[in-house]
């Protein structure tokens, strides 16, 4: 039961062709049908009890028509031919082509192999088994001892079947199964409460839990909260920062990832506009976005415009090699999409998005990097981040961090944001470790749309980043 790739598509091929023809009837140059069927299940375990359990099902299609520089878009939850034709008419009306004309569309069916086939579909797993998973996590965390105020475990699975067909002849399908477990703990001590969390997630089925030790994750979340009880206020000011492998991919996601998205480039609202071929980073930096990485959180067989995802090198040895592209931006430049056109759901227009973005391995022993840092901060777990692509200024949070004093890790410090400027930080990376690891599953938000993304990096050091703490 690797997947249901052989099942009937969400919309029949003949219907799809008629809908595309209708969408082009008022003179559209391009039309697309994106259909989606999404099922999800969520369980929340809190204070030793299953507090929330919910599940849902949604399906529908978004239809896009492009005329010149204008895109018209409409969506419908009605996948019947009648419902689709009405949406096609609305989308073409919104794009308002100058003149009508019938165009036949010849579709060529393809289903590129999924980089992430699911072995055990979560819908087929008894809810009782999902409950049991959370109970195990809870018991393990509580056994960690200490004054644990709260233990919250959150399980989510989703299955997203998509079909994309367009007037260029694309007719592609994909079946994406994702599963995620988050555990967060609150510990109480003399200086107040502290939090610790762990998340595991992958584009795969319930077999995820054969590969991950749920008890170990829960213990780690509890220990993180307990050890932060003795954390001091974070420093305030600019200093060297060492970031542990597999935790700091968000640094690149924010420092340059968003700035390398072709929609920001086309409008010249990225600090990386017009810089292909230039040295934009330390020669140690090779940065890749790869939607084909098997089972990673941002893995997809096709993007949400029906194009196969790929492995795209963005920065090679510090030189900017290319941006990330969706269909619309690539068309304007007369080139192909890089498979980075994504959308949150059938109710949204696609735009340029990252998939799995990571920094390639360096050569240094990670322990040596710390030894060679007389004074600074060691970040062992990062939270989210945010960037202003126009100025390149970006922040990211630290959830577990320590002072580095005389080449050794010493006291834990409290949560704070770090701030830096993308182009400056890329130049300031002065050493990269040989211990590459992918990080936790992320959700990237852009213009109100959230999509799953993966991130990764080896241990690395930035010569100077500003720590937003309060220590005097």
């Amino acid at each position, binding site marked *: 039961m690797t997947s249901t790739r052989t099942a009937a598509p969400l919309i029949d091929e003949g219907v799809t062709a008629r809908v595309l023809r209708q969408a082009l009837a008022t003179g559209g140059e391009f039309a697309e049908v994106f259909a989606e069927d999404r099922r999800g299940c969520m369980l929340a375990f809190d204070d030793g009890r299953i507090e929330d359990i919910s599940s849902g099902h*949604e399906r529908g299609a978004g239809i896009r028509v492009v005329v010149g520089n204008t895109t018209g878009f409409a969506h419908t939850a009605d996948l019947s031919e009648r419902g689709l034709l009405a949406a096609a008419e609305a989308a073409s009306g919104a794009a308002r082509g100058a003149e009508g004309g019938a165009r036949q569309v010849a579709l060529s069916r393809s289903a590129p192999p999924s980089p992430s086939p699911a072995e055990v579909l979560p819908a087929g797993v008894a809810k009782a088994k999902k409950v049991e998973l959370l109970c195990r996590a809870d018991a393990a965390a509580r056994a960690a001892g200490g004054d644990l105020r709260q233990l919250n475990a959150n399980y989510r699975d989703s299955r997203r079947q998509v079909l994309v067909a367009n007037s260029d002849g694309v007719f592609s399908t994909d079946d994406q199964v994702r599963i995620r477990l988050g555990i967060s703990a609150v510990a109480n001590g003399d200086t107040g409460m502290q939090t610790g969390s762990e998340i595991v997630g992958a584009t795969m089925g319930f077999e995820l839990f054969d590969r991950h030790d749920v008890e170990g994750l829960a213990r780690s979340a509890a220990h993180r909260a307990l050890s932060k009880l003795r954390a001091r206020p974070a420093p305030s000011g600019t200093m060297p920062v060492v970031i542990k492998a597999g935790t700091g991919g968000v640094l690149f996601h924010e420092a340059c990832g968003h700035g390398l998205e072709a929609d920001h480039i086309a409008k010249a609202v990225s600090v990386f506009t017009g810089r292909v071929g230039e040295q934009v980073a330390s020669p140690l930096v090779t940065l890749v976005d790869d939607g084909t990485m098997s089972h990673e959180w941002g893995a997809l067989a096709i993007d949400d415009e029906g194009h196969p995802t790929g492995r795209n090198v963005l920065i090679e040895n510090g030189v900017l090699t290319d941006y990330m592209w969706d269909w619309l931006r690539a068309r304007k430049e007369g080139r192909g999409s890089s498979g980075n056109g994504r959308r949150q759901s059938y109710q949204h227009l696609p735009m340029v998005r990252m998939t799995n973005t990571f920094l390639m391995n360096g050569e240094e022993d990670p322990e040596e990097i710390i030894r060679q840092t007389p004074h600074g901060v060691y970040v062992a777990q990062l*939270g989210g981040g945010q960037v202003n692509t126009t100025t390149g*200024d970006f*922040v990211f*949070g630290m959830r577990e961090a320590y002072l580095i004093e005389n080449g050794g890790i010493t006291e834990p410090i409290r949560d704070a944001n770090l701030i830096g400027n993308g182009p400056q930080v890329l130049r300031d990376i002065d050493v990269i470790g040989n211990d590459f690891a992918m990080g936790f599953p992320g959700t990237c938000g852009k213009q109100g749309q959230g999509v799953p993304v993966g991130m990764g990096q080896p241990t690395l050091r930035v010569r100077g980043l500003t720590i937003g703490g309060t220590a005097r």
Partner: protein
Amino acid sequence: LSELAELAERVAAWSHDGECVEVYLSRGTDTEVRVYEGEVESLSSATSVGGGIRVVSGGRQGFAYAGALDDEVMAETLEEARSNAQFSTAEPWVGLPEPDGTEPVPLDLWRDELVAWPAQRKVDAALDLERAVRAGDPRIRQVESARWADSSNEMAVASSIGVLASGRSTACYLSAVAVAADGTESKVAHGYTVGRCPSDLVPSMAADDAVNRAVRMLGATKPRSAYLPVVLEPRVSAQVLSLLGSVLSGERVLKRVSLFSDRLGEAVAAPAVTLVDDPTMPAAWGAAAFDDEGLACRRNVMIDAGVLRCFLYDSTSARRAGRYSTASAVRAGYRSAPGVGVRAVHLQPGEVSPEELLAQVGDGILVQSVTGMHSGVNPVSGDFSVGAEGLLVRGGELASPVRELTIASSIQRMLQGVSAVANDIEWLPSRASGVTLAISEMSMSGA
């Protein structure tokens, strides 16, 4: 009774003996126009519907949702919610709310004017705004996007134990992102105007805001680290108030993870702070006659002149705490079961104008935008650290622009440190309104 309310009532009546069923339905039509360089970049318009069903049986709750409203889908969704309920933990406090006798405040939040507004006028409004921003200052290099968005939404909630409520509202929003440039340097800022219908909008305000905020940041430098007074502009204070709203949830108190547990009746903030959540104020973006469990919304004063007066509850957390619901149940659309949240949180405005407030502060920093509210603020430990940009304040006047800095403190210290609240309350497109606010000291990290 609206068509949606009739449907909700009919489905809720499908309950079996010994179980309670609640049906929440929503329908919304959204239109969005984006323009760029004098052309329509995209125009989308569509209606979405969906429903969420809660079943409580023997102290166990299950929830399920679907993105369609036909009977067959509703029946499947009810069955799924029933199945989910079997796996949750039974507790005496789990249950649906019963009508509590509070009469709803009549609110008229629907404007036929918006519903009838032709698409071409929406396009024209966005194009006019783009032109106004471009013409606003010679240093405006371009407009990253100018956007019209509107929505008309209906909701209904009905339960098998007598709740029946519905509401509808319209809203529209016109905004632009301006890019100011000087040599190789670029700065970006956002301006907007909101209302329930087109005649509420003031496009010139949106244009001026976008232009002035972008232009005044040109030449910004990274400041030296310091401890100094901080003034938050309304848009920034609104983000802080949203956060406070969630920190004051009664559910956090029950779970013993609230910063303010056991502090009712104590001074948790400076006397200038009176914090209120009042969805019955029609000017608020989140105004509503009913909460998302169908109880009449009411005015809740959480902090009165610095003294903590109440936490917010939905029906489940209230029953668990031995209290009454404050009608603070909110949902993130039909896909989610209700939880505790604010709709229209604001600070009681003070007496001084923003200019007088700056004069009182003397030297400090005015913060015009923050980043990383989700990554650098911990509502459990209270640690607060965000990226910021703004203008230094010297001798009560705005001075040089600064960027790439953070401001940090803790939620507890910030509340105690509020030295002044200005009189410029701004109803923003958010669950919180903003006001210019001074905090006596925060840590600014820079070079």
